[in-house]
């Protein structure tokens, strides 16, 4: 059981990792990664039960699927710092011959990753399949997934969302990162999503909202509640309201840093706002 301060310290370190990773290769997606840092830290250090010896089948442990694969920096940082692979390997992000591809993949054998993602809208279906397999295996552990809000514009999600309630996939907690931003602008400008809550509820899901998606206590409370709602015949959706670019003031509340790396000066500013806690890789 970690205390909140420990998780916050880890989050600060993860933010530094994200900034340094994308800066080094002058590419990658810092905005969404920073926005989900608290969520990933909470998930891998408190919410989920995972085995440290990674196995693809994941029998007897909780599983996580990242559908919006472009936020790989936060995924990699949190996986490394949870012990799935050496933290030093973060140095290889997006470089030739690395297991840390621009978007996550199983192809290079990186522990912790069970599906490739990057082409959007596919993760919900995969998570449902893994949840179905858990039911067939009488494995009562849960399946977690994360999806971008803009990603909901992909039609496959709605096939999956319809299926999950119809087939009572109640061992799945799908979280939507509601940061209201996508590449071309705000989701309201690009293609308004309407009421995401209303849509999921209309499709037969149980929906809970985490208003402060960058507050670890709020995330832990929300995910604990989500867990209590599993096993009741309905899939569970968590609407996580986050701030894109959280923790780096000039990156916050804008789509501008969706897929853009900071320059040297911007990196220094960002790092100054997030003082080293556990030690840089």
């Amino acid at each position: 059981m970690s205390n909140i301060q420990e998780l916050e310290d880890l989050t600060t370190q993860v933010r530094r990792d994200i900034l340094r990773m994308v800066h080094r290769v002058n590419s990658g997606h810092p905005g969404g990664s920073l926005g989900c840092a608290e969520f990933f830290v909470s998930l891998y250090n408190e919410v989920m039960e995972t085995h440290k010896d990674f196995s693809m089948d994941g029998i007897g442990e909780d599983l996580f699927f990242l559908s919006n694969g472009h936020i790989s920096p936060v995924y990699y940082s949190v996986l490394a710092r949870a012990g799935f692979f050496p933290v030093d390997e973060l140095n290889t992000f997006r470089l030739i011959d690395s297991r840390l591809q621009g978007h996550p993949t199983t192809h290079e054998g990186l522990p912790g990753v069970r599906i490739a993602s990057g082409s959007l809208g596919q993760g919900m279906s995969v998570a449902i399949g893994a949840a179905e397999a858990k039911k067939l295996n009488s494995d009562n552990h849960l399946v977690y997934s994360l999806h971008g809000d803009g990603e909901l514009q992909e039609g496959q999600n709605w096939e999956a969302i319809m299926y999950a309630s119809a087939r009572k996939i109640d061992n799945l907690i799908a979280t939507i990162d509601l940061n209201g931003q996508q590449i071309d602008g705000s989701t309201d400008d690009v293609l308004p999503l309407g009421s995401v809550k209303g849509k999921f509820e209309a499709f037969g899901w149980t929906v809970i909202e985490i208003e402060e998606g960058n507050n670890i206590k709020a995330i832990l409370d929300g995910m604990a509640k989500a867990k209590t709602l599993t096993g009741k015949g309905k899939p569970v959706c968590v609407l996580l309201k986050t701030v894109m670019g959280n923790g780096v003031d000039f990156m916050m509340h804008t789509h501008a840093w969706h897929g853009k790396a900071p320059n040297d000066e911007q990196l220094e500013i960002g790092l100054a706002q997030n003082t080293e806690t556990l030690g840089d890789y």
Partner: protein
Amino acid sequence: MKTYTNTGNKDTRSGFGAGLTELGKTNENVVALCADLTGSLKMDEFKANHPERFFQVGIAEANMIGIAAGMTIGGKIPFTGTFANFSTGRVYDQIRQSVAYSDKNVKICASHAGVTLGEDGATHQILEDIGLMKMLPGMTVINTCDYNQTKAATLAIAKHHGPVYLRFGRPKVPNFTPENGDFNIGKAVKLIDGNDVTLVATGHLVWEALEAAKALHESGISAEVINIHTIKPLDDKAILESVNKTGCIVTAEEHNFLGGLGESVARVLAQHNPTPQEFVATQDTFGESGTPAQLMEKYGLNSEAILKAAKTVLKRK
């Protein structure tokens, strides 16, 4: 010349159904998914025997492929079933990312491939699926020729670890391969020994090639007939051994000549032994409504077309 007996016309999709039924009894990890075409894919018996392992996903093929990929995580061996068009073109990116690139053990089983789907017309008659699937790294591509072979292939792919595209069809066609025969993925089957011309065929065109060989034999030409059920990995050795002897080759498939078996064979020949080749295949066109026999004739996919191509290629030696 060796001859083959048709033990009665049967559809290849029923061979798939029979194989799936057997797998249901012998391998508890096998699960089946279908996108609202259970009857057409002959999956009814599996569904009746194992309702807990049958997943009706509705008319949502993209979701079906994703769910199948997810089910492999936990050790299941998913067999997805829908028409070839909806098994490939419609869900190419889902197969590419969630199955092929993710190295998932999914068996994509596709019926109603090619023009012999018949009256439904070109919207449903995919002639590009072999090309789409063979281009995916790590994907095994199989196109079976009759009921018995389709059943054998269905059993074999369950034992093979890795993504597979299994292509079969709707019409009742001659059933001539051995009942309960072996199926070796990637291994060509030489049906007739010959010296003058090699006929390499896949799927429904294999029987047509046998018929063409018979006609050639009557005019004094010795044709070697090879059944290429696995287009990827291709049995390069069998093809090269045959053309070393015959010096010319006809490839035959119910598929576009761009991207199909013929091009795979041409690649092998160009690299190792440039050889005159003729292509029996559709000529970069869509199909249309009609009976399977009418369509095979109109699009040049029957024994007469193979015979003609053989005579042409013999002159090019």
